């Protein structure tokens, strides 16, 4: 009876189309909004993700997330280095600075100061130049998105394209000359501010007003020791907070979830997609069933049990949910691919797909429930009614 159920569905072209469109819409809204939400969340941890090398981030215990810098004192670095299981520990400066461009414009930037000797925590990918070039006098590395957008030179005539910042250009960071020695590719940050890398000691000259410079200590666990175990040891030995990279990402995302309107806004959009999808799909699927009620009644009279009819409806509903899910996913993945290099945050991990598929199936099953109820309570004797 499964082929019969599918034929009843497929050959009712307009209804079939309508139902699949309803599911597609819901699945599209859910996967699209979900991907943007996850994209935005992933940007909040861009700085952590970009630093692939360290396993562990050490910070003041009051720090809640990556942008919440509470400086440490220099001796903390030595204390951390002394903890057993620490392979190496490097200082990191993280702060904001104002860049004054050659054309006189000001722009707020993220400034990262890397340990002079090791340059630990440098950019993941270099587009131009090398990380080591930071050792050259006044050297800074600028991320490519910043270089081509906010830090780009304004065009002379309005309407013309801005000129990207390039290697050899100069700017002023707090009245100190800085020379661009490299361009890196980074994950876009949450506020879309340009990221500027320099050395730890040079960062001191760029931000003279800050007394304490040590924002974070980046730690590598010794081979064979679990990072979580090293975190414990560091915390016990120094009284500082130490988190593995994933833990720190989690804390940062948690902070944004709890303290910003982002999750609510996206939650509402996703819930709306889910709700509208359920209503549209439910309405159309129910109307499909009602249109076929005479035939379900006929099948019932001819000896189809309720279980079999239920199976037919579930198969129909599962089919439209899978088709609609696939279409909706395809559309939002396609749109995501098209906006890949834009400012739009879009990230579609498989976990999101599992959740969206689950939601789509719930929508379709909820819609099918109405239909199933209607068919199960159907009196087979109605087949003789005109």
């Amino acid at each position, binding site marked *: *009876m499964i*082929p*019969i159920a599918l*034929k*009843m569905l*497929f*050959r*009712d072209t307009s209804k079939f189309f309508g139902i699949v469109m309803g599911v597609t819409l819901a699945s599209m809204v859910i996967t699209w909004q979900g991907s943007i939400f996850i994209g935005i969340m992933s940007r909040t941890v861009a700085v952590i993700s970009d630093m692939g090398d360290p396993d562990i981030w050490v910070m003041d215990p009051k720090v809640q997330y990556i942008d919440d810098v509470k400086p440490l004192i220099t001796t903390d670095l030595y204390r951390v280095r002394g903890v057993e299981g620490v392979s190496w520990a490097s200082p990191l400066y993280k702060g904001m600075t104002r860049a004054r461009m050659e054309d006189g414009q000001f722009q707020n930037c993220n400034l990262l100061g890397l340990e002079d000797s090791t340059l630990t925590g440098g950019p993941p990918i270099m587009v131009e130049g090398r990380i080591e070039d930071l050792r050259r006098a006044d050297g800074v590395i600028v991320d490519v998105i910043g270089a081509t957008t906010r830090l780009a030179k304004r065009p002379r005539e309005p309407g013309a394209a801005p000129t990207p910042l390039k290697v050899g250009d100069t700017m002023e960071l707090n009245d100190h000359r800085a020379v661009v020695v490299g361009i890196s590719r980074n994950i876009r940050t949450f506020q879309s501010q340009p990221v500027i890398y320099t050395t730890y000691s040079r960062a001191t000259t760029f931000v003279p007003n800050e007394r304490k410079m040590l924002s974070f200590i980046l730690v590598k666990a010794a081979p064979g020791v679990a990072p979580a175990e090293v975190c414990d040891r560091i915390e016990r030995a120094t009284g500082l907070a130490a988190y593995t990279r994933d833990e720190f990402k989690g804390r940062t995302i948690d902070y944004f979830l709890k303290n910003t309107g982002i999750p609510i806004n996206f939650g509402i959009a996703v819930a709306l997609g889910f709700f509208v999808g359920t209503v549209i799909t439910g309405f159309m699927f129910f109307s499909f069933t009602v249109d*076929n009620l*005479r*035939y379900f009644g*006929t*099948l*019932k*009279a*001819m*000896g*189809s*049990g309720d279980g*079999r009819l239920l199976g037919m409806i579930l198969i129909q509903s599962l089919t439209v949910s899978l088709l609609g899910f696939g279409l909706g996913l395809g559309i939002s993945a396609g749109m995501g691919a098209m906006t890949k290099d834009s400012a739009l945050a879009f990230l579609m991990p498989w976990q999101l797909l599992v959740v969206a598929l689950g939601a789509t199936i719930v929508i379709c099953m909820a819609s099918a429930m109405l239909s199933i109820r209607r068919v199960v309570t159907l*009196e*087979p*004797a109605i*087949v*003789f*009614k*005109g």
Partner: protein
Amino acid sequence: MRVDATVQDGQNIAVRCRGVTKTYGAGPSAVKALRGVDLDVERGELLMLVGPSGCGKTTLISVVAGVLNRDGGECEVLGEDFARIGPAATTRFRARNVGFVFQAFNLIPTLTVAENVAVPLLINGVSRREAIAKAAEVLSRVGLGDRTNDVPTRLSGGQQQRVAISRALVHDPKLIVCDEPTSALDHATGQRVMELLREVAEGHDLSLVVVTHDARIFEFADRIAEMDDGRIVRLSTGQSHKKAEHELPVVK
């Protein structure tokens, strides 16, 4: 007034109803559709059920076919009492033993003719290939062998009813119930549909109960049971028999 529409010889009985009652609804709006029906349907006969609109014909065949529960009285169909075997077994019984023909054909418009006819076999668990093959065979017997892959709506009313009859036949049921099978058709087409049903009845021990109010098709009946107001009021032999029509004795 009550008519004894029963047959003495118990061996040859497909359907035996005694004092069957059915009331729709309750309270002041209740409708007594069957007020004590006594009726036997013999194996292999074509019994016509006639009477004015609203007298309970459809209700009676619904009870006999096992799609509607009676309220009272007794009713055995092929030796089974639906009230005793319960709904699940009744559903299986219908799948195996009963064929249905409706006034409005009730062919599933999104399935082909052959698929429609195959449905009772599929319900009985026959494989799809076998079911379609058997359906095609029955369809060619009723002269529609070349229309198996059409959708029903491309067929004329008479052809659609022949498809429906094929569907009622395909699984070799013991009982076929037809509710006004010719009402949606013009006279000539209705005659041909009845000829087909007559032919079907000639075979093995298949019984047909045909509800109609079309006097022009009475000639196809073995027996005619007349209903009025929820009861059988008259039973006569149809013209298909060589025997002359006679009225059965009225019993109190």
